[in-house]
């Protein structure tokens, strides 16, 4: 459960308080809402390392693609995201 997965930020939602800064992150096409408060400098198009719904760090594109490729090869991406419902599903 300690794994962090890289994904690309596709949209950042405006928020008044940094602590609530969220965005849409795509993990190989699977979109999820992610909290971005720990990576204040992250912008749309950046790759971030995400763990339990929170982005922990910006990573470079090569690193992200390489890790995603490994996940894909091991067929583990769906497994890693299976417990991560899209926000709408929670509503």
């Amino acid at each position, binding site marked *: 459960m300690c*794994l962090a997965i890289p994904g690309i930020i596709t949209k950042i939602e405006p928020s008044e308080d940094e602590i609530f800064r969220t965005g849409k992150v795509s993990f190989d096409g699977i979109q999820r809402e992610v909290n971005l408060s720990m990576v204040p400098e992250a912008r749309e198009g950046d790759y971030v390392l995400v763990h339990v719904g929170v982005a922990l*760090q910006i990573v470079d594109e090569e690193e992200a*693609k*390489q*890790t995603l490729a490994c996940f894909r090869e091991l067929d583990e991406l769906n497994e890693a995201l299976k417990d991560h419902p899209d926000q709408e599903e929670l509503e």
Partner: protein
Amino acid sequence: MKHLEEYRDKRQVRYLIDKIRDKISTSWNIMEICGGQTHSLLKNGLIEILPEGIIMIHGPGCPVCVTPAMMIDKAIALALNTEVILCSFGDMLRVPGNEKSLLKAKAEGADVRMVYSPLDALAIARKNPEKHIVFFAVGFETTAPANALSVIQAKKLDLDNFSILSSHVLVPPAMAAILRDEETHVQGFLAAGHVCSVMGTDEYEPVAREFNVPIVVTGFEPVDMLNGIYQCISMLENGKTGLMNQYSRVVRSEGNIQAKKIISEVFEVGTREWRGIGEIPQSGLVIRKEYDRFNAEKRFTINKIPMNEDNACMAGLILKGIKKPHQCPYFRNRCTPENPMGAPMVSSEGACAAYYHYGYESAT
């Protein structure tokens, strides 16, 4: 896309294996601390192709595995309160406490829900103002920022129906405890890349110095792990100790300063009980007094539950690397992932479950 090819390249794996074989003149015991790395070693079959003489000892780095049965009993006691919705990560629900697991409590009528993130538990709290939502917050340093964030958000939202039951543990003190244990014979460590991406690497220098061991920070992909092993045995062969960061493309020495700030806003370092290992001083995170309002152990009176770790399961020996899963008499017969007797059989990052899933009976 140089990297992409490089890291998936089977030839690269072969090359590193040969390099390791050429380098070693004797056998070495190396512990990978992180359960994710244990999983990767077995899933990718690395354990089978590593040269004889490299003995991988699987460490306690799976938060699900080291959460004491007593904490699970506490979570169950809270879940049985009809005003409470208890939320936690999926794997946590299956770990047996002294009597039963949270899933069993759910089957008996408790409101127990699996969530992906503590922030999902917070969303449930906002939607159910008539209930109190307790998030059972376990984890290592990687998970601490998210758990701390849920508390800070709850405070900002002035939510009165959200609290966390915290059982947070830290990696460096566990390494020190393992090195102090006379039964264990770990000579070098692979430190977990994602933990270090949050905390940085500064805390590992003193451990390496005090115990004269090499510690190599590495990632989870086969090539990263092999590279880490190679660096580690190179240091051992050359009589060197200290810290090496083999994962600098992800891990910076200072870690994520913002995340560290959020963690220390909510938590402070304190003594923690580890399943099968016992109490380790200053080995975990406890909620600061200022956040008592969001501390489930302060919000609810939970009757003292006697410590009664099951003796049949030898999780302690497994987590300290003294025994391998297949050496446990219950492995694969009485104890399976469907019916786990101990925590290391529950999560796929637990050593027992990893050995079970990938069919290792006699792997070294």
